[in-house]
């Protein structure tokens, strides 16, 4: 068996060439790597490593190829001369490769430290990015929330504003001192103030009585709310309105009272109606009682009067007995008049309805009373409507009503005189006529205003009035499906000031025939 060296020679030649090719291909990639990322230490190391390796590969491969070429061409002497040089270079390059790797040892530590920091920074950046993303999402969500809340708030604000402005009741806000900060239009209208230039109001101005305000404040402070508090408010003109007030206290974060918000409903109309209903009921009761009493008294009174008149024939006119019988007859007749008035009040007396011209009645009545009025220095002002439809009723009873009212007006002005205004108007839309008896007298005291229609209630001295005039008039007008409205003190036309005096407004519906004829004309 023989072992030829040829395979090793061929392997050496081809291997050397492949080594050169592969080392340069490797070098190319390290070059690309450091160009792509010049700051990367590892690529730098590999680049230097490959450079050294490539030089080593070239040196060794070239050396081997030269060696093979020289030996093949039988120039062994030349190779023996070059061999130490080639071997020395190879040794040097191997040491260089090792040195580069040792350099790696030191460099990689620094690189690791940097890499560690970089990783830490990368993680921190990633966390920051995640946090940023989360924040962005939250911000986006927050924006949506804010938008939704803003819409809700706008809707709520609109509802509140609508409620505040459109409420028919008074709505107000005030501070801890009771200064009204804001009041809606209905509230200002309730107090007769203009909403265009609202005044500076406070609860002190609003409440008519100090005790009412004190009770309100006490309840508000203790309970933190006030419910259905009946309050009397002062209007711009000084008149009083009755209201039902509910309020809630407003407190700051520490619970300190900083004001209140309140809603007040005007009960004046309701109170007046209630009062009128009570009065009507009372009148009805009194009327029934009066009718019973009058009926029972009327018969024996007639007998007393009849017997007194019969007995007068039995005694001479100059005798004392005759004179006594005259007194009995006169007083009995006075009693009969009272009984007749009571019957009229209770509508027990017969009535004959017909078309009545109120102007004619007023002219007749004024003709009778004018002289007496002049004696008391009372001037008469006639403000008659140009056209006043007839009403259906009892002319005699209506005449009595106007006599009663004018008498009362004269009584109110008899000391200092004054002006008696008789005004008639036709309310076409309501199909009512109004006859007003207005005096400039002393007016009706607020305390007795609700009692003036009570039977036997009078402010006149004993013997001057029975107290049945107004109650009888009330009954008559009610019998005519009308109303009597009392206004005292009176707000005269074209004047913003209240003037002492009384106005009695009688409203009676116009005749049905008049209505029919008008409807026929319109149709």
């Amino acid at each position, binding site marked *: 068996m023989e072992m030829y060296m040829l395979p090793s020679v061929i392997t050496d030649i081809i291997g050397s060439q492949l080594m050169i090719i592969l080392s340069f291909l490797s070098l190319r*990639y390290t070059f690309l790597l450091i160009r792509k990322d010049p700051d990367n230490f590892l690529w730098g190391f590999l680049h230097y490593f490959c450079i050294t390796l490539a030089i080593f590969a070239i040196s060794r491969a070239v050396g081997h190829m030269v060696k093979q070429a020289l030996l093949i061409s039988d120039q062994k002497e030349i190779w023996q001369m070059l061999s130490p040089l080639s071997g020395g270079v190879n040794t040097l390059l191997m040491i260089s490769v090792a040195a580069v790797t040792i350099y790696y040892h030191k460099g990689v530590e620094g690189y690791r430290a940097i890499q560690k920091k970089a990783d830490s920074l990368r993680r921190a950046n990633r966390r920051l990015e995640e946090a940023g993303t989360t924040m962005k999402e939250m911000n986006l969500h927050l924006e949506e929330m804010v938008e939704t809340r803003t819409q809700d708030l706008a809707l709520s604000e609109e509802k509140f504003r609508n409620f505040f402005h459109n409420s028919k009741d008074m709505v107000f806000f005030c501070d801890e001192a009771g200064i009204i900060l804001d009041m809606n239009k209905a509230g200002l209208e309730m107090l007769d103030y203009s909403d265009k230039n609202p005044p500076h109001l406070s609860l002190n101005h609003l409440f008519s009585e100090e005790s009412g305000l004190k009770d309100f404040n006490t309840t508000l402070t203790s309970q933190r709310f006030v419910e259905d508090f009946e309050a009397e408010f002062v209007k711009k003109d000084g008149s009083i309105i009755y209201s039902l007030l509910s309020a809630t206290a407003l407190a700051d974060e520490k619970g300190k009272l900083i004001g209140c918000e309140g809603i007040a409903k005007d009960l004046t109309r309701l109170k007046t109606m209630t009062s009128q209903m009570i009065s009507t009921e009372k009148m009805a009761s009194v009327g029934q009682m009066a009718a019973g009493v009058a009926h029972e008294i009327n018969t024996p009174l007639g007998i007393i009067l009849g017997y007194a008149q019969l007995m007068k024939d039995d005694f001479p006119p100059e005798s004392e007995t005759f004179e006594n019988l005259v007194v009995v007859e006169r007083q009995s007749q006075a009693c009969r008049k009272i009984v007749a008035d009571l019957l009229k009040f209770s509508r027990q007396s017969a009535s004959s309805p017909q078309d009545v011209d109120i102007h004619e009645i007023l002219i007749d009545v004024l003709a009778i009373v004018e002289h007496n009025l002049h004696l008391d220095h009372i001037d008469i002002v006639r403000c008659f409507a140009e056209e006043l439809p007839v009403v259906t009723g009892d002319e005699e009873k209506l005449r009595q009503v106007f006599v009663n009212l004018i008498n009362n007006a004269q009584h109110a002005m008899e000391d200092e005189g004054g002006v008696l205004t008789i005004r008639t108007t036709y309310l076409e839309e309501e199909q009512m006529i109004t006859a007003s008896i207005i005096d400039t007298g002393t007016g009706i005291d607020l305390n007795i205003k609700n009692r003036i229609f009570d039977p036997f209630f009078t402010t006149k001295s004993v013997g001057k009035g029975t107290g049945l005039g107004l109650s009888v008039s009330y009954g008559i007008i009610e019998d005519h499906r009308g109303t009597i409205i009392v206004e005292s003190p009176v707000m005269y036309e074209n004047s913003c000031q209240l003037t002492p005096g009384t106005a009695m407004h009688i409203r009676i519906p116009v005749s049905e025939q008049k209505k029919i004829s008008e409807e026929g004309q319109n149709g």
Partner: protein
Amino acid sequence: MRKYFILPCIVLICCILLPEQSMALQTHSEPEGIYVHQMAHVLYMAALGYLFWDTKRSTFAGQGWVYLRIFCVLTILWNFLAVIGHASSSHLRPEDFTHVNGYLFSKVNMPLTFVKVIYYAAKLDHLLAVPAMLFLYLSLRSFYKDAVKDGDN
């Protein structure tokens, strides 16, 4: 104090006047070259061993590092083979080879010994060196591809 000054002066004068005795320049005999070369191989192996160990213990991830470690292993084996080859050649004599028909047809004379076999195997060292370089090339190509991919991301 004085003796500390005189003694160094005498040594210095002797070194200047009697250079042969001071052995200032060391002569380098013939085997030194092969020793240095062998030590360079050992140093090379040690460096690659360290590189292998360090890249393995590191957190460097990717196929490129695996290829690099294969390169290290193959190159260490090549160095080892080269060291053995150099060592074996020093034990062979010109009579162990025959160059009858020129260098290309030279052959190892019989009988075959262990040293001769080792020498012959060491002559085929490119069978280790070329694959080692191939793995280095693959490793660097893999690094580059990963870098490009990371850059795109």
